[in-house]
């Protein structure tokens, strides 16, 4: 009562609020006309009242007329009113008179009305009760059922005893349809009067024993609603429910599966233990005999799955093929929560299939997959491409897919994922683009190999035109830099330059924080930024102001000479700010940093307080702790505990007695059936499932089921439990015999029924073993797949399963350790080479992240996939410990489009620290080189990768320059291969031919080469050509023709390579370009590569 009152109140509040809002909008926008809703409101309140009344009058007249059709017409109009939410309650007396009408449609519409208004007109509603009471005794089962349905839907407390009685009677009705209705009525009565709980539980207990598939679903719903904690009621029915499951209607399946999941978690031990033994043998033991089963359990100490546990898993598995998405999800969560780890992956395919369904289904399924993919990447990794985002997906679907892709990222697939992300950043949906940037950030922290690559990509995004993209990049870069600030002072200064153009508060605040945190790395820039901020302080957003105060404080501590006055000025501004947070912060900072007599103790520590090294933030999934909720539930979807949510318990350490599930009732039946049941069996056989009925099938089913009712009624006069049991039993046996003669549609049911029974008819045994064999083989194959999955995973998550919370912390802390390592900047020798392996291709993956900056290289399309050749730049013997290697990463140069980018790996092979490594004099002097920033320190045995840009002006002339350390200078030279002076370009076949025609004569160089036949496949040719030259593959319609297109980096001249395969493994290699010298050199190189290969 209280609850409903408060809910009413809150809704009233909600209504008020929206009223206010709409009133406000009316005032503000001077909306010219009232919305329909408002019109309706005003209508009912004013003149419409009379017309309304008049209409109702004529409805009343119609209802009171003698003509059936008029009454029907009136009722239809009343239903129309109800459907629009209009009040028609004053017609109650006129309507209720027709409750006993003969016309079925009229009667049904009266029922609709009654159910809607009975609560408001309780006294009048009582008039109709006697009609229903009479109908409850009707010989027709459907009339009984519908009477009970309406009676129980009338929410009038006075009739509770009548309802109770009706429910009890209906629960032992002969018709399963009526029993089903009584199960529904239980919940209605419970919600009307919770005091009836105990009596209702009795009815539930009785109905749970029911063997009809029709009842099973409904009674479990009632169980869940009324007494979900009475697990003990389920024991005896567990096996029956498992076996009936396939034949229960789909909605009932969902409820039963969810309930059984909860049940199993209280009754079975965890199958997730390391020493678990997944032997199908134990299953056999179960079917052999009871005694053996017990023995088996006693003997083997390792984990053996309870046969009932296995039964549940086995019987739910076929439901993965259901067309009902809710059923599939229910089975998936059951497997997730109950199955041994290696069996869970069988649900993957089905879940991925659900993604084809409606948008709303996708949403819920993706949420669940997101949670699952955090714990078990391996499950969904093979289906990664199913999570690729399509432009037509709605935003929340896109974000969820992004989340899953991020969860699935690992060292092996990161390059594919980043390439995919790169297209998302350019999405028209800016919210999604921003989410992608965050995802890139997460990948960067999770996979240390790509941190640099991602960071570079994000820096490129800083020059994006879209502000939200820039803002998001800043925020993410900030987080990334915190993990390894030492190497990135150039990024910080770059961001400082951008500062003026960024207006998004969060981004501004992030830059300010970075400035403050690393002010010692950008000693010249930081005070200048502070100066600018002092000017604009008053007009900034609060969050920016706070960070300005912070920046001022930090600068004051590190560089008080330059910033003392500025700081004081800002603190004064902050002191009088409107926002109390800012005033508070200002006051606090002033006490902390400005030396005075009182605050001397605190003052001493100011530096340590403000400039303490802060742990890097951990970017983690939003779905990280969703796993506290059972999958597939509303609570999981919303990530809040919803009312009525039943907690999934932890596995018990010791399994409760499994014998509680043994059904003793079968025992008496066993003894009883052969002797007495014989005659009955034959009798019922004709009546229920006689062979000829099976064959004819067209004999109406209703008659057969009616028959069954009448027959059982005759035999069940006494109404005893055992009698009912026997009936069921005979039905079963009869259907068994029926089955052997014809493949009937009840086959699955029969089979499954047989499985539980301890009796073993000779024929069923063979059946059983067959199905078992097939299932076991299926399982073993699935296990082998998942085994390999498990291998790829680190061992930590495996342990995680047992104790949920703790190991997660372990994982996290591990990660942090590695991040801190980077933070401390002691680049371990093993750390450096790795990026060099990964980064080239990855950088090219991210190359497109920027839209404007490297735009002239935009035609670069195909990722170069030749082997990366590394060249020696400086040997460590000549370099006094310093060694350098370089390679061409084949990515467009960040610095200038006419430059070829070169990556140099510097390694300190000596035993002392090298300082100030930088590029010195160069020759020829006109040579344009974009040098790497001076490397302050390089620890012994550490190495670092830097990138340079060199403008070779389309010649292969070596670039000579000096590599200097603090003490020494070494002359080095980089000699580019001609193929590296190109960049790939996309071209359609037609364009290619067109361009080629323009470059004939002088501009054409060709040679005939001989190739081994093994190498004439297009793949090897592509590989060979791409390894030599940085060109793109152009499409070709002929099989014997291969085309490649590129441009020279400096002048952008086209270079077209075509290879025509001829008979007897000879081929014509043609190069068309204006740069004839390059052409001949390239021809040489290609010739060599292609013939050698």
């Amino acid at each position, binding site marked *: 009562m209280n609850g409903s009152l408060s809910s009413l109140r809150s809704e009233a509040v909600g209504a008020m609020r929206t009223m206010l809002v709409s009133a406000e909008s009316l005032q503000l926008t001077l909306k010219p006309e009232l919305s329909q809703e408002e019109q309706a409101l005003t209508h009912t309140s004013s003149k419409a009242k009379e017309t309304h009344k008049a209409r109702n009058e004529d409805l009343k007249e119609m209802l009171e007329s003698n003509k059936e059709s008029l009454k029907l017409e009136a009722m239809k109009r009343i239903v129309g009113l109800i459907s629009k939410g209009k009040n028609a309650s004053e017609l109650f007396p006129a309507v209720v008179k027709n409750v006993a009408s003969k016309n079925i449609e009229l009667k049904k519409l009266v029922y609709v009305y009654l159910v*809607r208004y009975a609560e408001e007109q309780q006294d009048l509603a009582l008039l109709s009760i006697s009609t229903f009471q009479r109908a409850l005794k009707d010989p027709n089962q459907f009339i009984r059922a519908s009477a009970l349905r309406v009676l129980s839907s009338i929410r009038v407390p006075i009739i509770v005893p009548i309802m109770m009685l009706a429910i009890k009677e209906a629960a032992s009705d002969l018709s399963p349809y009526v029993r089903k209705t009584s199960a529904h009525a239980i919940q*209605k009565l419970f919600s009307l009067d919770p005091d009836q709980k105990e009596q209702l539980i009795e009815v539930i207990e009785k109905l749970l024993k029911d063997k009809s598939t029709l009842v099973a679903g409904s009674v479990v719903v009632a169980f869940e609603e009324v007494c979900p904690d009475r697990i003990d009621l389920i024991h005896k029915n567990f096996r029956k429910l498992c076996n009936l499951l396939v034949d229960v209607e789909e*909605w009932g399946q969902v409820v039963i599966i969810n309930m059984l999941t909860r049940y199993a978690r209280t009754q079975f031990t965890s199958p997730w233990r390391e020493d678990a033994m997944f032997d199908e043998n134990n299953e056999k033991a179960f079917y052999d005999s009871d005694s053996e089963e017990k023995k088996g359990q006693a003997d083997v100490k390792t984990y053996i799955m309870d046969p009932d546990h296995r039964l549940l898993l086995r019987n739910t598995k076929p439901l993965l093929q259901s067309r009902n998405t809710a059923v599939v999800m229910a089975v998936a969560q059951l497997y997730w929560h109950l199955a041994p780890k290696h069996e869970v992956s069988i649900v993957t395919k089905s879940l991925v299939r659900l993604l084809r369904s409606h948008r709303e289904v996708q*949403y819920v399924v993706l949420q669940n997959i997101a949670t699952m993919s955090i714990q078990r990447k391996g499950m969904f990794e093979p289906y990664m491409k199913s999570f690729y985002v399509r432009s037509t997906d709605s935003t929340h679907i896109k974000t969820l897919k992004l989340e899953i892709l991020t969860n699935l990222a690992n060292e092996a697939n990161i390059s594919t994922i980043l390439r995919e992300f790169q297209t998302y950043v350019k999405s*028209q949906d800016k919210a999604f683009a921003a989410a992608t940037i965050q995802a890139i950030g997460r990948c960067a922290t999770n996979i240390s190999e790509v941190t640099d690559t991602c960071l570079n990509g994000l820096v490129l995004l800083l020059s994006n035109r879209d502000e939200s993209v820039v803002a998001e990049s800043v925020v993410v870069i900030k987080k990334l830099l915190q993990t390894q600030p030492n190497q990135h002072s150039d990024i910080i200064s770059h961001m400082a330059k951008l500062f003026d153009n960024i207006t998004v508060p969060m981004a501004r605040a992030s830059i300010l924080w970075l400035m403050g945190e690393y002010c010692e790395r950008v000693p010249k820039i930081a005070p200048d930024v502070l100066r600018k901020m002092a000017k604009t302080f008053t007009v900034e957003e609060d969050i920016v102001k706070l960070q300005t105060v912070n920046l001022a404080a930090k600068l004051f501590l590190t560089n008080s000479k330059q910033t003392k006055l500025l700081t004081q000025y800002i603190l004064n501004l902050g002191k009088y700010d409107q926002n109390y947070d800012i005033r508070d912060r200002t006051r606090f900072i002033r006490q902390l940093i400005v030396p005075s007599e009182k605050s001397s103790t605190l003052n001493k520590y100011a530096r340590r307080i403000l400039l303490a090294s802060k742990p890097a933030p951990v970017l983690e999934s939003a779905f990280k702790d969703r796993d506290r909720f059972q999958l597939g539930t509303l609570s999981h*979807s919303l990530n809040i505990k919803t009312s009525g949510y039943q907690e999934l318990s932890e596995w018990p350490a010791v399994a409760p007695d499994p014998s509680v599930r043994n059904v003793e009732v079968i025992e008496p039946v066993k003894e009883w059936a052969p002797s007495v049941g014989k005659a009955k069996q034959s009798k019922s056989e004709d009546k229920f499932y006689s062979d000829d009925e099976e064959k004819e099938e067209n004999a109406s089913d209703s008659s057969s089921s009616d028959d069954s009712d009448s027959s059982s009624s005759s035999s069940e006069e006494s109404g005893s439990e055992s009698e009912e049991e026997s009936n069921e039993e005979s039905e079963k046996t009869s259907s068994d015999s029926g089955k052997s003669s014809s493949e009937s549609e009840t086959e699955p049911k029969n089979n499954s029924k047989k499985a539980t029974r301890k009796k073993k008819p000779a024929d069923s045994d063979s059946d059983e073993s067959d199905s078992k064999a097939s299932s076991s083989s299926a399982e073993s194959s699935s296990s082998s797949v998942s085994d390999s999955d498990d291998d790829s995973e680190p061992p930590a998550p495996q342990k995680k399963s047992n104790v949920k919370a703790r190991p997660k912390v372990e994982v996290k802390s591990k990660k942090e350790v590695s991040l801190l390592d980077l933070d401390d900047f002691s680049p371990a020798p093993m750390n450096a080479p790795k990026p060099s392996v990964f980064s080239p291709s990855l950088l090219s993956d991210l190359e497109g992240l920027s839209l404007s900056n490297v735009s002239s290289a935009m035609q670069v399309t195909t990722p170069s996939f030749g082997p990366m050749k590394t060249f020696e730049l400086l040997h460590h013997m000549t370099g006094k410990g310093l060694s350098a290697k370089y390679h061409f990463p084949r990515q467009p140069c960040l610095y200038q489009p006419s430059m070829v980018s070169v990556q140099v790996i510097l390694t300190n092979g000596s035993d002392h620290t090298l300082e100030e490594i930088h590029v010195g004099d160069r020759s020829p002097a006109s040579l344009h080189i974009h040098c790497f920033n001076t490397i302050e320190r390089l620890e012994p045995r550490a190495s670092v990768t830097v990138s340079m840009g060199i403008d070779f002006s389309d010649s292969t002339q070596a670039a000579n320059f000096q590599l200097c350390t603090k003490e020494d200078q070494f002359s080095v030279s980089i000699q580019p291969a001609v193929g590296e002076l190109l960049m790939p370009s996309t071209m359609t076949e037609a364009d290619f031919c067109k361009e080629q025609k323009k470059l004939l004569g002088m501009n054409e160089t060709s040679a005939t080469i001989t190739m081994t036949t093994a190498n004439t496949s297009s793949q090897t040719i592509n590989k060979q050509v791409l390894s030599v030259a940085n060109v793109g593959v152009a499409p070709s319609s002929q099989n014997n023709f291969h085309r490649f297109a590129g441009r020279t980096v400096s002048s952008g001249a086209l270079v077209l390579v075509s290879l025509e395969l001829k008979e007897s493994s000879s081929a014509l290699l043609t190069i068309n370009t204006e740069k004839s010298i390059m052409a001949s050199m390239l021809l040489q190189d290609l010739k060599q590569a292609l013939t050698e290969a």
Partner: protein
Amino acid sequence: MIHSLFLINASGDIFLEKHWKSVVSRSVCDYFFEAQERATEPENVPPVIPTPHHYLISVLRHRIYFVAVIQSEVPPLFVIEFLHRVVDTFQDYFGVCTEAAIKDNVVVVYELLEEMLDNGFPLATESNILKELIKPPTILRTMVNTITGSTNVGEQLPTGQLSVVPWRRTGVKYTNNEAYFDVVEEIDAIIDKSGSTITAEIQGVIDACVKLTGMPDLTLSFMNPRLLDDVSFHPCVRFKRWEAERILSFIPPDGNFRLLSYHVSSQNLVAIPVYVKHNITFREGSSQGRFDLTLGPKQTMGKAVESVLVSSQLPRGVLNANLNPSQGAYTFDPVTKLLTWDVGKINPQKLPNLKGTMNLQAGASKPDENPTINIQFKIQQMAISGLKVNRLDMYGEKYKPFKGIKYMTKAGKFQVRTYQHFLMVQTSM
């Protein structure tokens, strides 16, 4: 379970409400409207919305929101699936599921909803059972009803609910016994800017229209059942038989139903039946962009590609497009920036082409985004996966039915990502 249902149209009016338990005020929908306001697109309204005392689970179909009010824990998919089933039923009954159709048939709608749920738990959702309970309205029947005063509500009781084959109504009689099966496959693909396939998969369904007298027992077998990687069945299909023999054995419902949906195993390479050549460029400083798009067939096994429809969301900066289609007609909506080109059939000799210029907002910088091209097409008489039905047999009845199988391939979510070529002078950093 489901407490109440509200139907809300595109302009935000609640035009139908139905309560299965005590009445929930329609003001609860205000939370939904709030969420709707926050979402930029109709599709972006979250399907599950928490409110202080209720939870709203909604489904958007045919521009109508079906909002279910829930009071306590229930699997969200349960409700979503049910709501979709409601929409399917309406569509089945009225042909279309529009606001007008629902308002015109409000009594039937109410009767249906009453039968479909009891106390918020689904009771009868099989269309065969429902049709026995409530006859679908037809013009003829409405006429007869008004004259004779008979009703739409079946006098007969839903016998199907009690039978072992609840999906099939009893006493079916036809003079012409026929069974038609449509094998429809959809290709979902993402093609990248250079024309290579990023991801492609085939999903298929077998839709059946079975009009057979009595209780026929059908078996359908495939030439190559191994192609089917993942399947989901109508409840009528016997799962054991499929597991053991890869044969579909079932007693069909009467009328139209979806027998099977399947996914073709991903190992098989997917043949992409069309290719797209595109060149969509914008120049910095110029207020014009170039648009050039050509479609062509490939790997169609000689079958014609029909009903081709190209649509693309152009960047926001585009004001107008002056294009010239070589065939078909195009439209450009300057508000939503949606370009659609109804191509029709692709003639391999003369490839359809759409070419012209796009006008950009004067002074605006060139757009950042790269439009995606969505393509729809149909290919008759071919299942692109190569799936073939071997034979269809009927048992249990004596007559000879007429059997027909049709194949079709369609584009599902078929998208081509484009890439912009910027011609712009590099300014140093």
